[in-house]
């Protein structure tokens, strides 16, 4: 039997009972729609997490100074001034380390004209921008010579710009941090939220020396709160972690059995754990939606079985005029596959539309990938064949005389 005429036969059968055909398709539509939508939401969440991770910078270590121990009372990490800018300088010589940025931070009130804003001020070096993979959107970053001479220059984050400068270009303007004047040399790109929900754009960068000597003035000259270091590659992370520990223990003259007075944290590992959680959530959403796809498939089988019983006489007539078992099998299989594929196409459109709505109404990021649609299409065709096969075989194996006599 030729494919074109088979298609016509299937079309006749399906258009004869439109409501039933539609309801059967509806099961597939909802199933496929749910899968596409859930995958879109899941992958949206995954995308958001990955975005935050890459905004943090890749292959990162955060080295914190240790806490103090005085009279048995231990304070939190970062309280003791054990790390110095020189430690950071020494790390740059490690072959497994690509870039290092010391950080001295504190919060301060910023004033420009009639506006003021409280924000986090980080004293660091130009390599901070490399470590955090951050660009300057206008103006220029400060330089190593600014760091050497502790000049009063500042790079502003977008949130700070929005709160202090209405429509003005901040580059070249002078702001006051803790009442000292600073020249704005550049504005940082938008970074967005960090993994823990902080606004990374609500920040100001100044040379580390400026922060140490002029802004937050510590009694321990040259100490920094933490150092960020970037490994040369993801593969070098383990070696880099060992190198950093060895280097600092050596520089801090710690003997074999003394506790370290610093902590090296692998930020990327933490981020990866978060990403893993999101991936699992995304898979679970997909799995739950797949159940409705399965239910849709069972709906197809149900209707096809009813259809075979109802059309027993038709099958008998077809056999009498020369249809082979294979022809009957293919006819019913084709019907099931057409129902599932058309249902899938409409379902995919519904899913994409639903994802768009979720994105617009709930402000949740969604990601629709070609493979999620291709996958659900293939699954739908497979479901059509799988659940259509049993009824189709039942039809094909009818005895001609029984089928013809069926009332």
């Amino acid at each position, binding site marked *: *039997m*030729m494919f*074109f*005429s*088979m298609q016509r*036969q299937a079309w*006749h*059968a399906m258009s*004869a009972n439109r409501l039933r055909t539609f309801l059967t398709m509806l099961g597939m539509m909802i199933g496929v729609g749910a899968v596409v939508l859930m995958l879109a939401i899941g992958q949206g969440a995954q995308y958001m997490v990955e975005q935050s991770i890459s905004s943090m910078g890749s292959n990162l270590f955060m080295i914190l100074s240790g806490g103090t121990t005085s009279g048995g009372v231990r304070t939190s990490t970062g309280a003791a001034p054990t790390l110095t800018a020189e430690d950071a300088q020494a790390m740059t010589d490690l072959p497994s380390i690509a870039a290092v940025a010391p950080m001295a931070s504190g919060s301060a009130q910023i004033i420009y004209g009639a506006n003021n804003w409280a924000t986090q001020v980080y004293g660091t070096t130009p390599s901070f921008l490399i470590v955090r993979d951050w660009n300057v959107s206008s103006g220029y970053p400060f330089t190593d010579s600014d760091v050497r001479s502790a000049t009063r220059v500042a790079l502003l984050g977008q949130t700070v710009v929005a709160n202090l400068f209405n429509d003005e270009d901040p580059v070249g303007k002078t702001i006051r941090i803790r009442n000292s004047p600073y020249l704005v040399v550049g504005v940082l790109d938008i970074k967005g939220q960090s993994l823990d929900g902080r606004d990374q754009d609500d920040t100001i960068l100044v040379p580390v020396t400026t922060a140490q000597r002029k802004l937050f003035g510590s009694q321990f000259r040259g100490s920094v709160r933490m150092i960020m270091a970037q490994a040369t590659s993801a593969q070098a992370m383990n070696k880099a972690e060992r190198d950093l520990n060895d280097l600092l223990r050596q520089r801090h003259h710690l003997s074999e059995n003394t506790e370290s007075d610093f902590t090296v944290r692998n930020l990327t590992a933490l981020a990866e754990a978060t990403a893993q959680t999101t991936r699992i959530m995304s898979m679970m959403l997909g799995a739950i939606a797949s159940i409705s796809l399965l239910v849709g498939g069972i709906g197809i089988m149900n209707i096809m079985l009813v259809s075979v019983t109802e059309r027993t*006489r*038709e099958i*008998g*007539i*077809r*056999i*009498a*005029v*020369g*249809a*082979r*078992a*294979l*022809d009957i099998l293919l006819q019913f299989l084709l019907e099931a596959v057409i129902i599932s594929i058309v249902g899938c196409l409409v379902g995919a459109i519904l899913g994409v539309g639903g994802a768009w709505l979720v994105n617009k109404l709930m402000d949740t990021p969604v990601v629709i990938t070609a493979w999620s649609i291709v996958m659900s299409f293939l699954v739908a065709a497979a479901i059509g064949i799988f659940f259509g096969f049993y009824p189709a075989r039942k039809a094909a194996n009818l005895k*001609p*005389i029984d089928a*013809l006599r069926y009332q």
Partner: protein
Amino acid sequence: MPGHVIHTEHLFKQYETAAGISPVLKGINLTVARGEFVAIMGPSGSGKSTFMNILGCLDTATSGHYYVNGQDVTVLDRNQLAHLRNKFIGFVFQGYNLLPRLSARDNVSLPLVYSGASVPEMRTRAQELLEKMGLGQFSDFLPNQMSGGQQQRVAIARALVNQPSLILADEPTGNLDTATSYEIMDILTKLNESDSITIVLVTHEPDIASYAKRLVRFVDGQIVYDGAPPPRKAREAA
């Protein structure tokens, strides 16, 4: 048996029921030559319909042999039987057995669907036969938009579409009034005479049987008469 369209040898058929084995055909030997027009008559339960179903390869005998055009069908598989039904046998049923959702043209071309004809070929061939049956203008009609006689003519067109050598008609006039019955019988007679198609017909009515050239009478699963049909007089009187 060359030259013989139908040849049966000791054909037995029995059904197993809860009440035991009930024999329906008890050793039928029948030979029908090319171009014959045979009427089978007999009371209800005489086995004539079962015999027709076996002749049409819709049912199989319990024992015995059945040859179509010299080919023993008892050794054929399902696909070969389907091919035989498709190419060599045309069926005309009492209840027409048209597909209700297909137009007259699509009903007529149904056997062509299974012999691999192209769609334009199917259309022309179906249209040709509908015109031959005097139904040229009805080709887009659905069966329920036509009279019983018209539906039976569509069924005859369907039976002819693959140019079979044998037409099996199981009480083709059973649902029709007398005048329409004669029209149908005239068509079958013409097919037998001018196209020399072999026809085997089952009927209850002597005046219908009188159209045939040979009469076979069944009683209790056996042939009790094989000879000349009733005279045409019966028909003229009706």
